[in-house]
Structure formats: structure tokens, C-alpha cells
């Protein structure tokens, strides 16, 4: 979905440039729609990027700790819990915003007259998917189904 977003952004800007250059008109909403799509690209792909290990972490401690698997495991679970807590906190307030925009019928007030809950809802979905991915990873590590070293291994890339 996020990949589609990149293509739509490119297509939309080209369309706007063509309209402006050759037809002296405009879509009158490019900035706005492209902004929504940028948010969608960033957050809809967050879960996928996490799964593939593309979400950065700094691991000065993780490497030496690999000699004590239990400590490594506990640390990993604590980090997962902290991440779940703070993104869960964010999600609950973000949900409040989306719900308010939906029930009060807030729109963008521009040519598109876009109901605001649609783009914010997309970001919410992305955050929830990310939360679930982190949860799945945390469970996997805690139940020793997957090794924590399957994580984005910062030092492993050194040659």
C-alpha cells in the first residue's frame, strides 16, 4: 500500500505540473493530498520496515550481552514492553483525534473537502500494525521461538 503511495505521489505531482505548464490551471489540492500520502507512506510501511529490520536501533549493549543469553533476553523484553507502552499511549490519543474528526465531521476546508478522519485514520492503522508487529516480535523472543539476534544487528555489518 505504501508502495502505491510513492507512485501516486509521483503521478499526482506530474499531473499538477502538466496542468500548470500546459493548461494554466491546477488541481488546487496538490500540497494537501501529497502531504496525506507522505504520512501514509511513512506509517503504513512502518510495520513492514520493522519486520525487515529496517527500523534503526543502537546496540552498544546488545553485542556484549550476547554472551549472557538470559540477560539479553530480559533486556530485549523490557525494550519491547517500553516500545509497546509508548506507542500504545500514542495510539490511544491518536484514536481520540480520529474519532473526533469523524463524529464532528471536520474536513480539510479546501478544494478536496477531504474528511480529516480518512488520512489520519491511515496513519492510525499504520501505528496499530507497527504495535502488533512489535508485540509479535516480543512474544517470539520471550517464548524463545525466535532468537533476539534476528533483530537489526547494528555491529554485524562491520567488516
Amino acid at each position, binding site marked *: 500500500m505504501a508502495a502505491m503511495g510513492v507512485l501516486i505521489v509521483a503521478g499526482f505531482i506530474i499531473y499538477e505540473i502538466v496542468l500548470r505548464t500546459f493548461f*494554466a490551471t491546477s488541481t*488546487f489540492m496538490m500540497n494537501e493530498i501529497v502531504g496525506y500520502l507522505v504520512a501514509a507512506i511513512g506509517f503504513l510501511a512502518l510495520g513492514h520496515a520493522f519486520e525487515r529490520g529496517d527500523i534503526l536501533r543502537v546496540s552498544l549493549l546488545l553485542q556484549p550481552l550476547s554472551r549472557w543469553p538470559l540477560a539479553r533476553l530480559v533486556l530485549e523484553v523490557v525494550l519491547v514492553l517500553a516500545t509497546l507502552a509508548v506507542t500504545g499511549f500514542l495510539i490511544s490519543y491518536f484514536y481520540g*483525534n480520529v474519532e473526533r474528526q469523524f463524529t464532528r465531521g*471536520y474536513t480539510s476546508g*479546501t478544494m478536496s473537502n477531504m474528511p480529516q478522519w480518512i488520512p489520519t485514520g491511515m496513519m492510525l492503522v499504520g501505528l496499530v500494525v507497527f504495535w502488533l508487529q512489535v508485540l509479535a516480535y516480543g512474544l517470539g523472543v520471550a517464548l524463545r521461538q525466535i532468537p533476539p539476534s534476528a533483530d537489526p544487528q547494528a555491529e554485524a555489518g562491520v567488516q
Partner: protein
Amino acid sequence: ADTVKWDLSTEYAPTSLPGRADAYFAERVKELSDGQMDITVHYSGALGFKAADHYTAVEDGALQLADTPFNRMNGIYPIFEMQALPFLQSTLDEAQTLDELMRPFYNAKMEQNDQFILFTAPWTPQGFWAKEDVASVEDLKNLRVRVVDLASVQTLKRAGADAIQLSWADTLPALSTGSINAVLTSDDGGLSAKFPEAGLTSFSAVGFTVGVDMVHVNADAFADLPEDLQLVVLTAAAEAGDYGWSIAKETVAGNFAKMGDLGVSVVETVSPEFKAALREASQPAIDDWKERFGPQADMLLDLYQKKVAGE
């Protein structure tokens, strides 16, 4: 007691007209409260909020105070758009009349969302910054003009110009590359953005509308203040409102002379025919607004027209 610390968010610079009124307000609160209350003004959107976010941010108490232009509140409730309708108000006096008349209506709506207006501060009236004078419908046809809100797009498209919604940050680069050749904004906004240096050496004061900013406060935060500080805030607000409107009036008087010094050609008044044509082009935008607002729109418009006519 501890000093009460509040934050005020604005999208504009400290040198802009509403920005100066905000600074004045913060200064007066500090003086009148003997330093017991300290308001930090975050200019240029430094806290990360844009004007369009202010309404909900103040409702949730994320901000105690915010400076928000009425034309950035479309999409929330149609009543706020009234202050930004094209040609409803072309002078600072008309804008002030409308503001005073509508204040109870605005506040009645805002109370439902835990906030109310403390004071307002205007910009100077809006006209066309362009390379050549814009004095007739013919002149409009050559314009690629940057505008900010929906009603302006609708109006200018209909009048024959090519209107483009651009962010302020993209406006100057777009001017320098020629993808636009005009900007609809206040005389003051154009001067502080150095439009004459960017090649826009003409200002046509069509009085498209007058931008007005409101400074609104979270009602719970206000209720939590001790009573003496509540009175301080209200007093400083009344003073800042007077200050904001009076510096705008002084600025309008001085700006035309200043533009003359900079070699800007100023069309101080446009022909009645041109204004009538623009007014007519704005009708669909106004009808559109009425439809969204509902049947009471005409009632409010009548009230305002009578007041302006001095009845």
C-alpha cells in the same frame, strides 16, 4: 506561589502585526501580574503546530493559548469562515465591526469545545501584489496568483485569473522561478516578505478581505487560574486587542508611503466596475458557504449589512 507558565503558539513572525500584538499581550500579563504569570510566545510555528491544528490543540489543553487566523479555520465550523469571506469586509473598520458583532456567536460555538476568544488582531487589507497594476478584469487574465484559502481560489478562477494554492514557504521560490507572477495578500505581508525585490513592484488595493487572527484560550486552564490572574489576563487581552487594531491602522497609513519609497506602484483605489466584477465572481464562493452553513447564514449577513449601513 509558583509562577504560572503558559505557552502561546503562532505561525507568524514576531514582526508581523498579530505577532506584535501577541508579544504585547505577553508583556502586559507579566507586568500586570508582577511576574506571577509568564507567557512564552512560540513564533513561526516553533512548537510544531500549524494554525489549522490550533483549534483542537487548545480544546485538548495541548496549548493554553493560540493565535489563529479565521481563514485557517474552514473545515471546522462554517461560522468561522464568515470573517474571511471575499468582499464582505474591505477595510479595517468593517473588519472590526464584523468582529465585534460576531464575537458572541463565535464564542457560543467555541464554548462547546472548551475555549473562548481573548482578543483579535488584524492584518492589513488584502490586494494583489503583481508585476503590473491589476486594475481591470483584463489584467486578471495574465495572473498566476498564489492564494491561501478555498473562497479565494473559487472567486479568482471565476474572475478569469489562474489561482494556485501554495504554502507560504513555496511562494517565494515559485515567484523567483516564474511559476507564479502574483500573490494575493496584505500590503504588509508583501513588504515583510520583500516582494518588491522578488520583482512584484505593484500593489493593487482591491480590499479582497481583511485577515483577522483570534487569540483563544483553553477554558479549563483559564478557570484554574486564581481570580486575580484571570482579571490580569482579561485586562491584558483587552489592551492587546486595542493595540493590535491601532497598529494595523497606523501601518496601513504608513505602508503606501513606504511602498512609494521602494518604487512600488500603488493602485490605492480600483474602479467601481472592477470591484463589482470581483464581487460578482465571489458570489458562488459565498453561496457555497451559505449552503454549508444553513438557513441562518442570511440572518447573520443581514445583521452585519445593517450594522455597516449604520442602522
